[in-house]
C-alpha cells in the first residue's frame, strides 16, 4: 500500500500554455538562461504524487507579466489567475492558488487583487521582488500594501529576473542573484517601514528567504538608512561599523524579520540549521520550486529536508503541512475532498 500524500507545497509554479504562447509570439522564451518548460496541470499532479504532495499552492514565476505594456500585463495576469481558478475547480483538494498582479500598474493591481480574491477565491498573492527596478518598499505601492494589510493577505515573495544584472555578473542567475533579489526586497520593506506599518500581511519568502536569515543581523544594522526604493543613502565606504543603530533597534529589526515565513525550496543542511535557529519550525513551510525545477531536483530538496536531523516528528509535520494549513485553512477542507476522491 503506497504512502498517502501528506505534504502541502507552497512553492509550486504554473507555466500555462496560453501564457507561454502570448510571450513566445513576442519573442520571449523565458527568463535569462531558461526556456519555458512544457508544463500542464496533469504533469504537475503526477509530479506531486511522486513528491507525496497532497496539495500545491500555485504561482506564476518570473518573467511575470510586465513587458512595458499595461494592457498586456493586465491581460496576462487575468489569464493566469483564471487558469489557476480552473485548476482549483478541476482538481478539488489538489491545488490552492496565489494571484498574480500586473505591477507596476497599481490601479490594475488593485482591481486584479479584488477580482482574484473575491471572485476567483484565490488564497493569496505572489509578488515578484522587483519590477522595472521598483522594489516592494516603493512609495508608489503604498495603496496596494494598505489593501493587502486590510485583507490580512498571504503574500509570497518570489525573485524576478533582471536581465541587465544577470548578464553583468555572468552567473547562473537563479543560483545566486535571484536569492539576492529577495534579500533586497525584504530590506526595502524593512527600511521603508512597510514591514512594521502593515503587520497583518503574512509574508512567505521563497528559497528560504534568499540570504535574509544568514545576514539578518547585518541587515537590521542598516535600519535608519534608505532602501533601494528611497534612493539609498547608505554609502559608508563599503564596510560596516560606522553609524550603526542602537542594539535595541537592531533587535527590533531582527524581530520584524523573524515574523516572516520561510520556505524550504533551497536545499542545504546549513540553510535549514540557520532557519531553525532563526524562526524555528513554526514559520518554516514546505516548498519545492516545482513546475520550473525538474523533478530530480525537487526530490533532492525533499531528501535534504528528510535528512536534516534537527526536527522532531511533530516539528517536521508542521513544516511539511501543518503550518501551511494554518495559513490556508481552505486547504484543510480540501483534505476530505481529496481523500474521498482517491477512495
Amino acid at each position: 500500500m503506497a504512502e498517502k500524500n501528506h505534504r502541502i507545497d507552497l512553492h509550486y509554479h504554473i507555466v500555462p500554455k496560453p501564457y507561454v504562447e502570448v510571450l513566445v509570439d513576442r519573442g520571449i522564451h523565458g527568463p535569462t538562461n531558461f526556456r519555458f518548460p512544457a508544463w500542464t496541470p496533469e504533469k504537475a499532479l503526477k509530479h506531486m504524487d511522486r513528491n507525496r504532495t497532497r496539495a500545491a499552492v500555485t504561482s506564476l514565476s518570473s518573467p511575470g507579466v510586465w513587458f512595458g505594456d499595461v494592457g498586456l500585463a493586465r491581460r496576462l495576469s487575468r489569464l493566469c489567475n483564471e487558469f489557476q481558478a480552473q485548476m482549483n475547480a478541476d482538481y478539488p483538494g489538489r491545488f490552492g492558488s496565489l494571484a498574480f498582479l500586473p505591477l507596476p500598474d497599481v490601479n490594475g493591481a488593485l482591481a486584479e487583487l479584488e477580482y482574484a480574491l473575491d471572485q476567483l477565491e484565490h488564497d493569496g498573492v505572489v509578488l515578484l521582488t522587483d519590477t522595472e527596478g521598483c522594489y516592494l518598499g516603493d512609495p508608489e505601492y503604498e495603496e496596494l500594501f494598505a489593501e493587502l494589510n486590510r485583507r490580512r493577505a498571504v503574500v509570497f515573495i518570489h525573485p524576478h529576473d533582471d536581465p541587465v544584472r544577470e548578464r553583468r555578473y555572468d552567473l547562473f542567475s537563479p543560483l545566486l542573484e535571484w536569492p539576492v533579489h529577495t534579500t533586497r526586497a525584504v530590506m526595502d520593506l524593512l527600511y521603508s517601514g512597510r514591514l512594521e506599518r502593515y503587520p497583518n500581511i503574512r509574508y512567505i519568502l521563497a528559497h528560504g528567504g534568499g540570504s535574509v536569515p544568514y545576514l539578518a543581523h547585518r541587515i537590521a544594522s542598516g535600519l535608519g538608512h534608505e532602501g533601494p526604493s528611497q534612493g539609498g543613502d547608505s554609502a559608508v565606504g563599503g564596510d560596516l561599523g560606522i553609524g550603526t543603530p542602537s542594539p535595541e533597534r537592531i533587535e527590533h529589526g531582527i524581530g520584524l524579520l523573524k515574523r516572516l515565513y520561510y520556505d524550504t525550496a533551497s536545499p542545504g543542511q546549513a540553510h535549514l540549521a540557520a532557519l531553525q535557529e532563526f524562526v524555528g519550525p513554526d514559520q518554516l513551510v514546505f516548498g519545492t520550486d516545482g513546475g520550473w525545477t525538474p523533478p530530480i531536483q525537487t526530490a533532492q530538496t525533499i531528501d535534504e529536508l528528510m535528512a536534516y536531523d534537527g526536527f522532531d516528528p511533530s516539528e517536521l509535520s508542521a513544516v511539511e503541512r501543518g503550518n501551511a494549513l494554518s495559513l490556508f485553512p481552505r486547504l484543510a477542507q480540501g483534505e476530505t475532498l481529496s481523500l474521498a476522491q482517491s477512495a
Partner: protein
Amino acid sequence: MSSKKKTPNAPTLLDVHHHMVPPVYLQALAKKGGDIEGLPEWTPERSLRMMDRVGVEKALLSLSPPGAWLGNDEEAVRLARACNEFGASLAEEHPDRFGVLAALPFPDLEGATAEVAYTLDTLKLDGVILFSNVQGKYVGDPEFDPIIAELDERQAMVLLHPNSMPDDDENAALYPWAEYPIDVARAWARMVLNDTLVRYPGIRWILGHAGGVVPFMAERLGKAHYAKLNGLRWGRILKDLFLKRHGGLKLAKGVSYDTVGVANPVSSAALRHLVDPDQIRFGTNFPWESEESIEASIRSLADAFPPSQTDDARPIGIGA
C-alpha cells in the same frame, strides 16, 4: 603557533582579519579623492592595545577595501609594494604580534604575479588578501588563473575579502548591509563555476566575513558547476547532478571561514553545520569593529564554538 601550554588568560587568539591603514595608503586614497574622513583611525599601537585587551596573541595585517588598485596599474604596483614593505617592517619589529597578508595590485596580471613572488619568497609574508572584485573583475575569472597558479604553487594562505561593487553598478553605493558580504559569494560562485578550486587545490582559502552567504547557499551555488560545464542542457546534466549532488557542498566544506559577522546564533548555526571547528578562523575586522564590539563577539563566539578537546584550549579553531 607555540606548542607550550598557555595559561587560560594569556592571549591565545590568532586574528586573521585585521586591517592596517598604512600612512602611504591613506595618502594614496586622499589623492584619489577617496572618503578618508570615513576611515577609522589606525596605528600599530592601537592594534596592540586592542589585542592585549581582548586576548589576541597575533594579528595578520591586511589592507581594507578598496585595496591597492585605485584606477591605474602602475600606481597599484607601487602602492602594493609600499604597503607590503610597511607591513613587513612592522612584522619584523613585532614578530610575535604581527604577521602580514600581502596586498596585490590585482587586476594587473603581471604586477600581481610578481608581487606574489616578492612578498611570499623574499619578504616571507604569511599569505595574501584578495578582494572579491576590483571594478567588476572577479577573483575566479579565468583570466586571473596565472595569479591563482602562483599562489597554488606556494600553498599560500589567501583571505578572500569582500569589496564594493563597481562604481558604475546602479546599486554600488546602495547596500553595504547585504551586497557587500554577498560579493564574497559572487567570487566563490565563479571559482566553483570555473573549476578554480579543483584545478588549484593547494591554496589555503579563508573566506572573509564567514563567506558572505556561501555557507548558507553552498549547495545551491554548487549547481552552477554542472550547469555551466554542460552548457545548461538540463536533460543531460540531471543524471550528473543526481550523482554528484553534494559537489558544491564538498567544495564549501574544503575551505576555512573567518568569524567576522558570525557572533549571532543564526550565522554560527549554519557555519557549525557546514565545517569542522578547525576550519573556523578567528577574525576581528579591527579597526572597523570597535574594541567593545570585538569583546562582545568573542564572548558570543566562545559559546557558539566551545573549545575542542584536541585543541590546546583555544576558544575558537585558529590553527593557521
